[in-house]
C-alpha cells in the first residue's frame, strides 16, 4: 500500500471519513446543532469526495491491480456522490418528524455509497462482492430504519432475507467462476472463459447463477418482487436513495461482470437479457398501471426502468454506445426517480405513507413548487422532451436498434405509452382534480424544495443540453467495447 494507492481511493476514504465524522459529531454536538449541521457535513464530505477523484481520462490501477481507476469508475463515483447528496438534501425534515436517528441515517447512506463506489472501481470478484455487500447491507438497515413503523420493519426484513438469499446465489456463481478459471480477476476469468464458451457445463451454471444474482440486485422481473414491498415500506427518503443508488450500482456490476468478465458469453446472455428486459419493462409498467398508491406505483415504475436499462445492456453488440446509453440512463434515472420519490415527502410530512392518488388531489395548489418539480420528474420518467428522461430513452433505443433488436425497440416504445398513462395520471391528480379550498398548504422545508427545484431544473437542462453528459458517458463506457 503506497501513497499512490491511497490517493487512488481518496473519494472512498473521504466518504468513509465523513460517515465517521457524522457519527462522531452526533455524539458531540447538541440536538439542534446536529439537525442543522449533520446534513451540511454529509454534503460537504460528498462534495469533497467528488473533487477528490481524478479528473483525467487515463485509467490506472492501484492496490496491486485490485482497484481500477478508469473513466467508468469516475463516472459512477461522481454519480453515487450526487445521488447521496440528493438523498441527504431531501431527508432532514422527514427524519425529524418520524424520529429516525439522523446521524445514523446519513452515515448509513454514506456507507452504502462507499460500497457502491467500490463496485464501480473493482476489478475482481472479491472486491466486487465485498462492495456489493457493503452497498446492500446498509440499505437493509435504511429500509428498516423507521423502527416503530411496521411497514418499515416488513420492508427491511423482506429485503434482507431475499437480498441475502440472492447474494448467496451470486456468491455461489462467483465460486464456480473461480473454479472454472482459477482466478478471480475479471481479466483472467474472461481469458479463461473465451477458451471454453458456454458448452462447458459448469460455465453454464456459473453464468446462470451470476445472471440471477445480478438480476435480483437490479430488480429484473421475475426477480423483482422484493422491490415494491421494500420501496413501499421504507421511509421515503430511504426509498428515494435505495431506488436509485443500488440500481445504479447493480448496473455498474452488471457492466463490469457481464461485459467485462463474461463478455465471451455475451451472445448467450444478451439474448436472455433482451427477453428479460422486455418482460421487466412490461411487467413493471402493467402492474404500476393498477396501483393506487403513488409510492408503490413509482416502485413498479422503477422496475420498468430497469427493463429499459437492461435493454441497453442486451444491445452490447452496438459497442460503446450501448454501454454509454446504460450509463446515461442510469444517471438520468437516478436524478429523476430520486426526485420523484422525494416529492412524496411533502405529503409524508403530513403523515401519509406514500400518498395515494386521491391524496395528491390539489397538490398543485397546496405545494406549487413541489408539484412543478414532481410533474417535471414524471414527464421525464415518461420520456417526453425536453427532459433528460427523453434523451436517455433515445440513447437506449439507438444501440438497441443498432444491435438489430427491432422488436425490443418497439416494445420499449409501446411500454413508454403504458408508462405515460400512469405517470400522467399523477399529474392529473395534482393539477386537474381539486381538493376543497380549506385544505392547508403543505409544509415547505427549504432544503427539500431547493433540492427538488435544482434537480428539476437539471432534468430539463440536461434534456436540452445533454451532450457533455453523453460524451462523458461515452468516455466512461470506453472500457467496455465488445464487438
Amino acid at each position, binding site marked *: *500500500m503506497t501513497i499512490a*494507492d491511497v490517493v487512488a*481511493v481518496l473519494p*472512498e476514504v473521504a466518504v*468513509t471519513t465523513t*460517515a465517521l465524522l457524522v*457519527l462522531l459529531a452526533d455524539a458531540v454536538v447538541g440536538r439542534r446543532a446536529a439537525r442543522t449541521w449533520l446534513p451540511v457535513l454529509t454534503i460537504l464530505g460528498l462534495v469533497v469526495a467528488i473533487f477528490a477523484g481524478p479528473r483525467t481520462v487515463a485509467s490506472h490501477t*492501484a*492496490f*496491486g491491480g*485490485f*482497484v481500477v481507476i478508469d473513466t467508468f469508475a469516475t463516472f459512477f463515483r461522481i454519480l453515487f456522490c450526487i445521488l447521496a447528496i440528493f438523498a441527504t438534501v431531501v431527508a432532514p425534515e422527514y427524519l425529524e418528524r418520524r*424520529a429516525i*436517528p439522523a446521524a*445514523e441515517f446519513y*452515515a*448509513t447512506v454514506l*456507507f*452504502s455509497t*462507499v*460500497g457502491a463506489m*467500490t463496485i464501480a472501481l473493482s476489478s475482481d470478484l*472479491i*472486491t466486487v462482492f*465485498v*462492495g456489493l*455487500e*457493503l452497498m446492500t*447491507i*446498509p440499505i*437493509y*438497515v435504511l429500509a*428498516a*430504519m423507521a*423502527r*416503530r413503523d411496521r411497514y418499515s420493519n416488513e420492508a*427491511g426484513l423482506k429485503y434482507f432475507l431475499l437480498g441475502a438469499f440472492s447474494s448467496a446465489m451470486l456468491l455461489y456463481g462467483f465460486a464456480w467462476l473461480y*473454479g472454472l478459471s482459477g482466478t478471480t480477476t475479471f481479466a483472467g476469468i474472461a481469458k479463461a472463459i473465451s477458451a471454453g464458451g458456454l458448452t462447458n*457445463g*459448469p460455465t*453454464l*451454471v456459473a453464468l446462470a447463477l451470476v445472471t440471477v444474482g445480478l438480476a435480483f440486485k437490479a430488480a429484473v422481473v421475475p426477480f423483482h418482487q422484493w422491490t415494491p414491498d421494500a420501496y413501499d415500506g421504507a421511509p421515503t427518503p430511504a426509498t428515494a436513495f435505495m431506488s436509485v443508488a443500488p440500481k445504479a450500482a447493480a448496473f455498474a456490476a452488471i457492466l463490469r461482470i457481464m461485459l467485462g468478465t463474461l463478455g465471451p458469453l455475451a451472445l448467450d446472455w444478451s439474448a436472455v437479457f433482451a427477453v428479460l428486459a422486455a418482460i421487466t419493462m412490461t411487467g413493471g409498467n402493467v402492474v404500476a398501471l393498477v396501483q393506487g398508491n403513488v409510492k408503490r406505483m413509482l416502485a413498479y415504475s422503477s422496475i420498468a426502468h430497469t427493463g429499459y436499462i437492461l435493454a441497453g445492456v442486451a444491445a452490447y453488440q452496438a459497442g460503446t454506445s450501448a454501454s454509454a446509453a446504460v450509463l446515461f440512463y442510469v444517471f438520468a434515472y437516478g436524478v429523476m426517480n430520486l426526485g420523484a420519490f422525494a416529492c412524496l415527502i411533502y405529503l409524508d410530512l403530513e403523515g401519509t405513507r406514500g400518498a395515494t392518488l386521491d391524496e395528491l388531489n390539489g397538490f398543485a395548489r397546496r405545494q406549487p413548487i413541489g408539484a412543478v418539480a414532481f410533474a417535471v420528474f414524471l414527464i421525464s420518467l415518461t420520456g417526453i422532451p425536453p427532459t433528460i428522461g427523453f434523451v436517455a430513452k433515445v440513447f437506449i433505443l439507438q444501440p438497441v436498434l443498432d444491435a438489430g433488436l427491432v422488436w425490443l425497440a418497439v416494445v420499449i416504445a409501446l411500454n413508454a405509452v403504458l408508462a405515460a398513462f400512469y405517470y400522467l395520471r399523477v399529474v392529473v391528480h395534482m393539477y386537474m382534480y381539486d381538493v376543497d379550498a380549506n385544505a392547508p398548504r403543505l409544509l415547505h422545508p427549504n432544503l427539500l424544495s431547493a433540492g427538488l427545484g435544482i434537480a428539476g431544473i437539471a432534468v430539463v437542462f440536461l434534456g436540452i443540453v445533454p451532450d457533455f453528459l453523453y460524451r462523458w458517458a461515452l468516455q466512461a463506457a470506453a472500457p467496455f467495447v465488445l464487438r
Partner: protein
Amino acid sequence: MDFLEPVFFALFALGIIGAGLCVVVLRRITAQALLMALTFACMAGMFLLLGAETIALFQVLIYVGAITILILFGVMFTKQEERAYGLFFQEQTRWAAAFVLLIGLPVAYLALSFADPLTPSAKGGDLIPLAASLFTDYAFPFEVASVLLLAALVGAIVLVKRDEQ
C-alpha cells in the same frame, strides 16, 4: 493417512448433508440451530481435508462460535411457534422441492465434472500466505470489509437500541 481421506470425506459429507437437511426439515428451532453448528463443524473438517487449516480455524471461530451464538440469541429473543399456513399459496413445499431438484441434480451432476484429482497437500499450512496476501494484495477489499463491519455495527445498533425518551 491418504486412505483415510475418503472415509473422512464421506463422514464430513454425510454430516454436512445430513445436518443441513435436518436444519431444513426439523421443527425445533434450537435443534435446528445446533445442527447448523454441526454442519459448520463438518465444513471445518472439509477445509482441513483440503489443507486449509487456517480457514478451518476461522470456520470454527466465526461460524461455529460467533454466528451460531448470535443466532441462538436471536432465537432466545423471539418467541417461536409454528402455525398452520394461513393462505393456500404459502404452502409451496412441493413446488420448491420440484424446482430445487430440477436445478440441484443437474448442478450436482455438473459438479462432478470437475474430475481433476487433487494432489496431496503440501505441509506448512496456509496461514502465512493467507495473511500475507490479505494484508498486501487484498488490502483494499480488506479495508472495505472493515467498513462493512462498521456499517453493520452501526446498522445493528440503530435498529435495536431502545428509543431515547
